[in-house]
């Protein structure tokens, strides 16, 4: 693929990519993308920019998320890995192999440089997003002084049933694409490049997006059958992203300006007991109508949530412990998060039930003001918790976007 061709595609993809990509595309293209563009389709999403892709980018359909432990204690080795990863990520997000002639063009006596399962597949809007966990900021790499105060170990929440094998990690990479094979190929090859320097701690596949992060996307449904993320922050609302998602220069260490904090929670859903619950109770628990997604008391999905409507006997229509009331910015002093989660099923639990749920991902400017108070309110009072179990948890700081010729984490290690 020629450089010129790549740039051409990059321009088209920019409308898909969402906020933060400095670009000269027409404003009406923003507001009225064609349906194919809205989903991201097969096109590439630019890897470089002010912010990392894969955050405000319209949510792709598939996810492969991985958390790594860094096994080397040599800072130079770690930086070399981040540079190699960046080169491979730049190529893969363009729909190229990890290295030129990787899968079949090399020496017949050598194992192929690219694993090959994404040959013939387009870029599929692949984004690769890196994050640094609290544990990276210890004495191994001299990063202790650079740990942002907001990069806390998440507190224990009521009802957590966390499996240590699904928690934490020094580094994470989120791969999102519209083709699951492309996402898995990317993570597999990054893990391969990393052998000897990092080791996979845990990973999670997501088969369907549960959030829309662009007004051009329809709202998908979670495994409870409800539209999820109707009130999510949207890429087009750059003011809200600046307010609630992107870390500002004065917020903490300068290396993170333009970055954000990522919270990952593996939430098992007890779908079997949920499915035995009446429709009216399901709707009361969520606070929305299952069919339309309209808030209770309203008519259409995007009608504003009105927490002040009461029914017979003065009972609030959206109950005191309904999910959308507890999670609403109104109830949380204005705090908002950008949700970007995925449905998952990981086989069964050995008791005849699906091991299924939501791999919750969110981005916020300070998790202490965004995710933590929200989850605290939900864990304590949300009726939905009866059907949920949080089994995995992690917190990462995602550095700002990579400049042309730069590498992942350059502002921290450079």
């Amino acid at each position, binding site marked *: 693929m020629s450089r010129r061709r790549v740039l051409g595609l990059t321009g088209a993809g920019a409308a898909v990519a969402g906020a933060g990509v400095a670009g000269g595309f027409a404003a009406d293209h923003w507001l009225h993308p064609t349906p194919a563009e809205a989903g991201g389709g097969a096109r590439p999403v630019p890897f470089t920019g002010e912010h990392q892709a894969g955050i405000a980018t319209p949510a792709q359909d598939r996810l492969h998320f991985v958390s790594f432990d860094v096994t080397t204690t040599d800072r130079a080795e770690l930086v070399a890995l981040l540079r190699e990863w960046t080169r491979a990520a730049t190529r893969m997000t363009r729909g190229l192999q990890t290295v030129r002639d990787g899968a079949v063009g090399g020496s017949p006596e050598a194992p192929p440089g690219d694993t090959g399962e994404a040959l013939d597949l387009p870029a599929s809007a692949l984004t690769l997003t890196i994050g640094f966990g609290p544990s990276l900021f210890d004495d191994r790499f001299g990063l202790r002084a650079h740990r942002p105060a907001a990069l806390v170990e998440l507190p224990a929440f009521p009802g957590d049933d966390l499996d240590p094998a699904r928690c934490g990690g020094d580094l994470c990479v989120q791969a999102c694409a519209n083709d699951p094979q492309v996402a898995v190929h990317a993570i597999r090859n990054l893990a391969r490049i990393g052998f000897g320097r990092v080791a996979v701690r845990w990973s999670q596949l997501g088969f369907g997006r549960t959030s829309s992060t662009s007004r051009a996307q329809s709202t998908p449904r979670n495994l409870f059958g409800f539209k999820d993320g109707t009130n999510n922050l949207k890429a087009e609302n750059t003011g809200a992203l600046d307010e609630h998602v992107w870390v500002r220069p004065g917020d903490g260490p300068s290396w993170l300006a333009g970055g954000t904090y990522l919270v990952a929670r593996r939430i098992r859903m007890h779908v079997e007991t949920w499915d035995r619950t009446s429709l009216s109770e399901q709707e*009361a*628990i969520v606070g929305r109508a299952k069919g339309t997604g309209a808030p209770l008391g309203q008519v259409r999905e995007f009608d504003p949530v009105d927490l002040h409507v009461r029914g017979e006997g003065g*009972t609030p229509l959206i109950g005191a412990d309904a999910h959308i009331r507890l999670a609403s910015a109104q109830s949380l002093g204005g705090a908002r998060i950008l949700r970007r989660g995925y449905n998952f099923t990981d086989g069964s639990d050995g008791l005849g039930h699906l091991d299924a749920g939501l791999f919750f991902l969110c981005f916020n400017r300070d998790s202490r003001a965004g995710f933590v108070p929200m989850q605290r309110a939900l864990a304590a009072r949300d009726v939905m918790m009866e059907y949920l179990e949080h089994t995995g948890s992690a917190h990462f700081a995602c550095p700002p976007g990579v400049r042309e010729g730069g590498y992942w984490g350059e502002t921290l290690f450079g």
Partner: protein
Amino acid sequence: MSAKSVAALAGAGLLAVLAGCGGNGESATDDAIAVTATDSACEVATTSAKAGKITFEVTNNGSQVTEFYLYGPGDRIMGEVENIAPGLTRRLIVDVRDGGDYQTACKPGMKGEGIRGDFTVTGTAAQRDDPDGGLGRAVAGYHDYVTGEIALLVPRTEEFVAAVKAGDVSRAKELFPVARTHWERVEPVAESFGDLDPRIDGREDVVEEGLEFTGYHRLEKDLWQSGLRPDSPEVADRLLADIRELARRAPNVELTPVQLANGAKELLDEVATGKITGEEDRYSHTDLWDFRANVDGSKAAVEALRPVVREREPALLDTLDTKFAELDTLLDRHRAGDGYVLYTDLSEQQVRELSAAVDALGEPASKVAEVVSR
């Protein structure tokens, strides 16, 4: 413990209101009745409507925050929308089932009797009744069951608490699952007291920040794991006081037949998510006692509804009877003395069998509420 049941019991009126919102929902705005509120007037564009879903769209043209109400006879609130700031329009959809004389009201400043107007509802929306009193008898019968269990819960807890306070660990361990049996049998009702439930039955990992870990499970931990602690007697006293408070309040719980049916299902949900995994009694491993008690309670609710279900859906009743019997047989295999083997003594295969039997029963049990609501 569960928060679910709280919602189920919280407001009998809730279901009726929600039913009005659950449908396709696309029809409400076209025939909305405009209400124009000012500081001194409350103009309702149309002052009559047919029974069923009635939509008001209230615009506040005044200078004060206002609210809008629809009142039924005796000033019973049919629906309200609060906190309408000047310049805003807000929507209220009310499901009015009976024709008759109603009143609208705007309340500038959100206080006082408001600016009233008459509103007439014509016709009657379809509603069901209970001609032969079968549902009423079902509720009364189950109410008696709940009262009877709580009447046993108090003395059994008194004995348990006395053993804890006497430092008689082995006696307290014997009494722990016995006392809990009466709690677990009526769990959906017991849990409906949102303040008491976490204090009585909270598990260590579920207790909300700022609350203490108290109740049965705190004493369970003391008895089986950490040994009795200096404050164990105090925790025991508090448990007994909470149980007595529960006994005082329980007679006033009002149940509807649908809530009763949902209770039968919820008890099996409790088994499926809490007992089958050994999470409930993680220190004592007496989960099968609680398992048995939940199933007993579920069966009692179905028993109360038996004549109604037999008349309306006999095949469902047959299925329930069969599946209850199968689960009983399976549970009986794990009996030991007056009680049950420990959860930790079950093989994986045995847990799987129990889980499958609970699912097989939970599925038909979830259909009872709809039959009852017909």
